[in-house]
């Protein structure tokens, strides 16, 4: 009897846990179904390659796609080399001391800083103090800084996947530390570092708050031509289409289409990162 009751509680408990997971999956499924079912109708070659027309009630979202691409490029410029450098320092050079602890603490804290605070910082430093004005450069640098903690973590993971023996072998043959890193660590780690950082960049591509005041524009007739030009961006475009356009109900299909393109954009980047990481982990195990 008692045993049965225990069994019953276990069954009930596990069922509840299973339900939790079911709910989480359900949330994702609902999000996808809603956006795909209402967004895919408008997606066409024209939607992807044309500029908005007629007060953004017609046409496509091409400038927003290009703008997001450009900004992500600048973000990569800041976050990838710095992130790789920091990861190399932490994984190859640093000793387990106070400085290392502080650096790791700083990384975790940076990743917890709210995105709107990065926006404030971007306005104060890049737009105001360094006088870059609002544009691709200011927005990209702001996002780059925000992405840094993620690219560091991703790069470290790639470095860790290179077996210790590779380094030791090289050092034993009389190579200097840098030579060992350059010839026996980096060649194996760099592809993983680069693609791993794409995960971080994909998040930056979807961010809105940091670019609100550092360069995103409501509507521009032309693609940006220089780093100091303002730009349209997918997440910002979705924001205005959902809340600020003069006919938000009329442009709802465009908003859904933009949301779909944004999600696909982010997930394509994500997928690349995940696949590469999966391969790395597998390689490490072997």
């Amino acid at each position, binding site marked *: 009897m008692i045993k049965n009751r225990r069994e019953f509680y276990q069954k009930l408990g596990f069922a509840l*846990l299973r339900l939790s*997971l079911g709910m989480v999956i359900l949330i994702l499924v609902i999000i996808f179904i*809603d956006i795909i079912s209402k967004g895919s109708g408008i997606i066409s070659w024209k939607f992807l390659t044309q500029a908005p027309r007629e007060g953004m009630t017609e046409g496509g979202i091409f400038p927003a796609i290009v703008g997001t691409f450009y900004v992500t490029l600048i973000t990569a410029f800041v976050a990838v080399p710095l992130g790789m450098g920091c990861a190399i*320092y932490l994984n190859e050079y640093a000793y387990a001391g106070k400085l290392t602890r502080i650096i790791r603490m700083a990384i*975790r804290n940076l990743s917890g800083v*709210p995105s*709107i605070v990065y926006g404030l910082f971007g306005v104060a430093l890049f737009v105001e103090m360094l006088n870059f004005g609002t544009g691709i450069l200011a927005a990209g640098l702001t996002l780059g800084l925000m992405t840094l903690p993620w690219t560091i973590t991703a790069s470290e993971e790639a470095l860790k996947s290179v077996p210790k023996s590779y380094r030791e072998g090289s050092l034993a043959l009389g190579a200097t530390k840098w030579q060992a890193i350059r010839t026996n660590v980096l060649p194996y780690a760099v592809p993983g570092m680069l693609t791993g950082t794409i995960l971080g960049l994909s998040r930056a591509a979807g961010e*809105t708050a940091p670019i609100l005041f550092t360069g995103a524009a409501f509507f521009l007739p032309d693609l940006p031509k220089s780093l100091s030009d303002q730009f349209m961006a997918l997440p910002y475009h979705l924001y205005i289409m959902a809340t600020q356009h003069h006919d938000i109900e009329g442009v709802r299909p465009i908003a859904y289409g933009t949301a779909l393109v944004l999600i696909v954009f982010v997930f394509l980047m994500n997928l690349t990162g995940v696949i590469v990481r999966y391969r790395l982990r597998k390689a490490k195990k072997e």
Partner: protein
Amino acid sequence: MHKHKIKEKVIYCFFLFNGLVVILALIGIFILLLKNALPAFKDIKVGEFLFSANWNPTSYYKEVYGILAMVVSTFIVTLGALVIAVPLGIGTAAYLSDVASPRVREIAKPVVEMLAGIPSVVIGFLGIVLVGPMVAKLTGAYNGLNALNGSVLLAVMALPTIISLSEDALVSVPKSFHEASLALGANRWQTLIFVRIPAASSGILAACMLGMGRAIGETMTVLMATGNAPAMPESFTDSIRTMTATIAIELGEVAYNTTHYYALFVIGLVLFIITFIINMVADIVLENYKKKTSY
């Protein structure tokens, strides 16, 4: 040989510099926020700023800067999010670590990662078109743009953090605990509830704190989906305006270097300090947990 040594030293310094950049960035953010925030207090009394619930920089009469209502709003919407996300998150984590077959885990991991990858502006958009109307129907309100709507959406955003970190905590509970419990005749459910979750509790706590930090700092979702009424909220069906939304709404309008501009940086500074404290505490809790489980 000597030349080599110098070169090595230079390279070392280069990478050290890269490592130091993160510290510089963190300190830089703090200093710049502080530098732009302090001038606000030339015109605003600190006491009024912290304890007045009235924020009206464009008042017809006299500008007032009090952040109490938006701090309370931020915490209310976060609290609501945690009430939803914590049980759901820990339950999912426990299922993945203790019950699920490897195949289910293979499916669940990418699901959680994909959830984390959905941009906040998309969640906010769904708050307007999908969740908001549902919230309105459920609560009988005419308008779903309120704190409850924000809480539901923020829960979705905090879930991935809570799930993956809680799962990490559960997985790292030493096997011996588990085996001892089973040997004493407990079944798997009892072991999970009375042995494994308590053993992982500090790790799970840290996970929830980081999820909370995420919710407090989230901007676009609450900006789009909570109605942004600046009044002190009285219930979950009230429209609210958080600290993050206030910055997002007003930073675009202010002329640079005015009291209003500086006041927005003070809000930013307060947000920075709150999230910093949460992260630090979570960090310490997690550090201790790792020490405890690494035997």
